[in-house]
């Protein structure tokens, strides 16, 4: 006989679910609306999504307040874990989504936005990411991850171009493989400890003093492979450029930020305790992985001829850079991770948005790809403002002060220095120099070359509408005036990270 379920509602702490439930409800709402009256304009869905996300944001602020008062909150059979990391990363996820959604209001009509499903899936995806970061249960992580990923594959495919399908299939197949790795890794840990909760795993493993280190490592390998895929660590990165190229620029920008922060949080939860327990192997592997990812991605980015692909590789490199934080594993480095990613999301979303507004409906004859460097040649002559903003984002990505990413960069390198990783700090710094080249290349094209084909500059803002311009404006402002906000951000992030015990 099953014993009666005897759980009080209070102890479930359903509040912890609210931030995830809001987008789900929103998604369902959109579907329902479509059910009643289809063929609505995309602006309706955009605004609805914005509203939902806004509410979500407020809910997050609520839980942030609770966290500040009571510290970490567990809920729903201790499956949900609302700690500083969860809250911070959800802020980033929701915030970036808020910036992304208006990008659907393009001047040109694009296939995907005419479907309400797009927005519903989008909201589901957000919920998935939120689940992923707000738990330390391997099952829920898996579920969140897959929810988000499956939605994302579909979103990519909805762009309805040959390349988008190819991208979606590639992403999907590799994602499925990664899912296999993930489940296998979880299985190993489950077999070793009999638990799927990360903190319990940690407790049990350290209780028996890592007796089965060989098996632990096997589990780590598989989890590393799957997270490496998500975070596009070399050599699991191969999907990234293709997928970014295949999806719309806006979505690519989104992908470079949101899934990764979710991945980082999971990685942080998983690897932190392992590194701190002195699993030297993991440290070595992560070290190698970080260096490889940073460097190789940079090197590949050097030789790209398409801006979007270049930005894809650059995102990989940035991810590698940030992975260093997990390797270093101090409070400062983990804070640096969040600081970096917040600043990065402004800049990177901005730069992808710049590509997005220059997106033509069809590829002109002289262009190899949507955003080849040639397209931007001599841009300053015809649309100086757009060129300046794009240049600004590039400078920020390159880490030129005082633009946004510089602050993240120094804090991150400083954390490496503080953590005793001198060589790593140097490698990180020098990688910025390599990266400088390809960011500069775009600036060179925009500011110093003559146009390959004469145009009146309209091509660079073909897709622009007020909302898009607003988003870019926000991103640009965030990039330029980051130095005013860095202090507050840093203090906030440090408090949240520190109080979650990382």
């Amino acid at each position, binding site marked *: 006989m099953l014993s009666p379920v005897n759980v009080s509602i209070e102890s479930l702490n359903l509040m912890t679910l609210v931030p995830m439930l809001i987008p789900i409800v929103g998604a369902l709402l959109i579907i329902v609306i479509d059910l009643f009256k289809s063929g609505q304009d995309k602006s309706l869905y955009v605004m609805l999504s914005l509203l939902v996300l806004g509410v979500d944001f407020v809910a997050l602020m609520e839980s942030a307040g609770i966290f500040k008062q009571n510290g970490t909150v567990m809920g729903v059979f201790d499956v949900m874990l609302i700690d500083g990391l969860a809250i911070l990363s959800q802020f980033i996820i929701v915030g970036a989504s808020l910036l992304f959604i208006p990008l659907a209001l393009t001047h040109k009509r694009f296939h995907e936005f005419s479907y309400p499903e797009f927005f519903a899936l989008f909201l589901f995806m957000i919920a998935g990411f939120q689940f992923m970061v707000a738990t330390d249960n391997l099952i829920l992580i898996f579920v969140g991850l897959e929810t988000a990923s499956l939605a994302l594959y579909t979103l990519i495919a909805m762009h309805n171009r040959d390349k988008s399908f190819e991208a979606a299939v590639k992403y999907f197949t590799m994602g499925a493989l990664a899912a296999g790795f993930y489940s296998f890794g979880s299985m190993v840990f489950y077999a070793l400890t009999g638990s799927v909760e990360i903190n319990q795993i940690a407790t049990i493993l350290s209780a028996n003093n890592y007796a089965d280190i*060989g098996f632990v*490592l*096997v589990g780590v*390998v*598989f989890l590393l492979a799957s997270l490496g895929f998500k975070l596009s660590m070399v050599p699991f990165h191969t999907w990234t450029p293709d997928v970014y190229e295949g999806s719309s620029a806006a979505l690519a920008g989104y992908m470079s930020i949101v899934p990764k922060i979710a991945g980082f949080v999971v990685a942080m939860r998983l690897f932190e305790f392992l590194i701190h327990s002195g699993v030297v*192997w993991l440290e070595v592997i992560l070290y190698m992985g970080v260096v490889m990812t940073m460097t190789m991605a*940079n*090197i590949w980015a*050097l030789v790209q001829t398409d801006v979007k692909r270049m930005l894809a590789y650059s995102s990989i490199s940035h991810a590698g850079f940030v992975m260093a934080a997990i390797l270093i594993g101090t409070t400062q480095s983990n804070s640096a991770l969040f600081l970096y990613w917040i600043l990065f999301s402004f800049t990177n979303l901005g730069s992808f948005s710049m590509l997005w507004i220059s997106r033509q409906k069809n590829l002109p004859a002289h262009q190899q790809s949507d955003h080849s460097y040639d397209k931007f040649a001599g841009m300053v002559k015809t649309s100086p403002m757009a060129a300046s903003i794009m240049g600004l984002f590039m400078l920020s990505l390159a880490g030129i002060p005082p633009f946004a990413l510089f602050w993240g960069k120094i804090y991150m390198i400083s954390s490496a220095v503080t953590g005793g990783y001198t060589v790593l700090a140097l490698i990180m710094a020098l990688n910025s120099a390599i990266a400088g080249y390809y960011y500069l290349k775009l600036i060179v094209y925009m500011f110093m070359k003559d146009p390959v084909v004469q145009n009146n500059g309209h091509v660079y803002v073909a897709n622009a509408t007020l909302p898009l311009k607003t988003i870019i404006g926000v991103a640009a402002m965030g990039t330029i005036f980051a130095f005013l906000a860095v202090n507050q951000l840093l203090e906030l992030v440090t408090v949240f990270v520190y109080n979650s015990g990382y």
Partner: protein
Amino acid sequence: MELFLYTALFSPLVGSLFAALFGASKKTKMAGIIPSALLGLSLISSFVLLVSVLSSGETVHVEMMTWMATGDLYIPFGFVVDQVSVTMMMVVTLVSTVVHVYAIGYMDHDKGFNRFFSYLSAFVFSMMVLVMSDNFAGLFIGWEGVGLCSWLLIGFWYHKESATWAANEAFIMNRIADLGMLIGIFLVYWNTGTLQYEQAFAIMPSLEIDVLTWMGIFLFIGAMGKSAQFPLHTWLADAMEGPTPVSALIHAATMVTAGVYLVVRANPLYDLIPSVGLFIASLGAFVALFAASMALVNRDMKRVIAYSTLSQLGYMFAAAGLGAYWVALFHLMAHAFFKALLFLGAGNVMHAMHDELDPFKMGGLNKVMKGTFVMMTIASVALAGIFPLAGFFSKDLILEVAFVENHYIIYSVLLFTAGLTAFYSFRLVALIFHGEERYKLFGIHPHEAYKFMLVAMSPLLLLAIIAGSFKMTYFEMVTKLLPATEYHVHSSLTYWIMTIGTQLFVAFAIVYAYKKYTSRDIKVPDGTSKLENCFCYKLLINQYYIPRFYEDYIVKSYRELSEIFWTKIDQKIVDATVDGIANIFYQTGERTRVMQSGNLSTMLKWMVAGTVTLLSLAVAFGLAARYSGEIKIFLSGLGV
């Protein structure tokens, strides 16, 4: 007195600036007259100062303003008029006034008339700074200033390749020496803590002899450049590319003697280091002979005189090196007069001969150029050191010094050189003014120079004749500052034998030169005669092949080395390394981008391969964990 000092110092500058105002405009007589007048003013002021110094024995010392002051270093623009500097001032202002006036005529037809006077007056100013400064840094200002003006004036006819080449050569050679000078100055500063003559010299006796030796050597290197001592002598002969008044003023009377002045000025230092002094004297004697030998055969009138200058500078250094500073200074003064005269005379001849310089193409000019003939002859007599002209007093004194100081080798070298001097001087006079009128072959119609030019030269003529009579007054004056060593040959018999012997020797040389070069057989040499093909002649006419050696081995190798540095090292190694590093990254990218083949199968394989690699590493580690001790050490070595 300060007023006179400033007038003496700055009126040349004013003159120079005045002429410079017209630098780019058409020739105007004013640009010549005003600077000359201002120089006259300077001359008068100097004379007033001289009289004052002579009569009262008091020196004038002013500090105009601070130049550089930092740390412990303090360098003012300070000027001093003492016995030594006032002598130099007189020489400089006098000769330059003469040359200025002369040049008004000489440069009459030149387009760069205004510019010329600007440079010339600027030179006088620099020279005045050089001699009047009360510290080493101020001396260096003048030192470099005269170098600059010399560069400008040698290269005055800048459209001539040879002139600009010579100008650059002079400047660069001087710079080499200036480095020595600079180092000398540094040594003085760091060891004495000051650059003021007075204070520095006061401290020097307490310094170690090594330091002083180095100081002396480096300062003398500076002097070697300015005074064109071997091996930095080649520029002087080439400097004759400049207009003749320039040669007279700069490359005979004043600038080249700056080196002597420096040694004289630094006498407290050189007194402490007799070994360096001996070296200076030996070098001086060597150069005297060396230069005289080259003058023997040269076929360029001005170059002959230039070598003679060089030779005489050797005499001066010989004297100074032996500690007879006042003698050196005296010879400097006397030499300035007759050598300037000689040059100006040569200038007249050049004008008459339409810039022909080869004395073999002249001859018999005494008929058309009486005045010049007389002047040049007297100047040559003075140069040869015949009693009672200026040269006799000063040069014989140097011989005596060498004799008395028991440096018989130096003495005999100098004596022999005296003969050579007489020979080549009169070879020149004979070839130019006597014998057949060979110039007619070349269709030249010589004419005497302007009257006023001759008049302008006359003070020099006068001084060349009578300067010797000032010897005692001069001695009284300068020995207040310089060591008052009197040089007397102990037995008067020896003295008379020496003096008369020298006179006879010199006279014989003169007669021989006259005999040889006034004969009617003298033809314009065409390179076929036996003499011209003998080794000695070739050696001498090619200046011991030294210029060629410099050209072939130093200039050329410098140029080639520069070329190699640029094309090979800078571009092929240094820059290529930088670009290479960048390229390595780029090429790695190009090579490895094929990894991203775009084929899904490959991508999946990469993923699996990555996992398998990690897995095998994990297994390896799991195995190694049992032997963890050693491995941890290894890893910590990696900085992990």
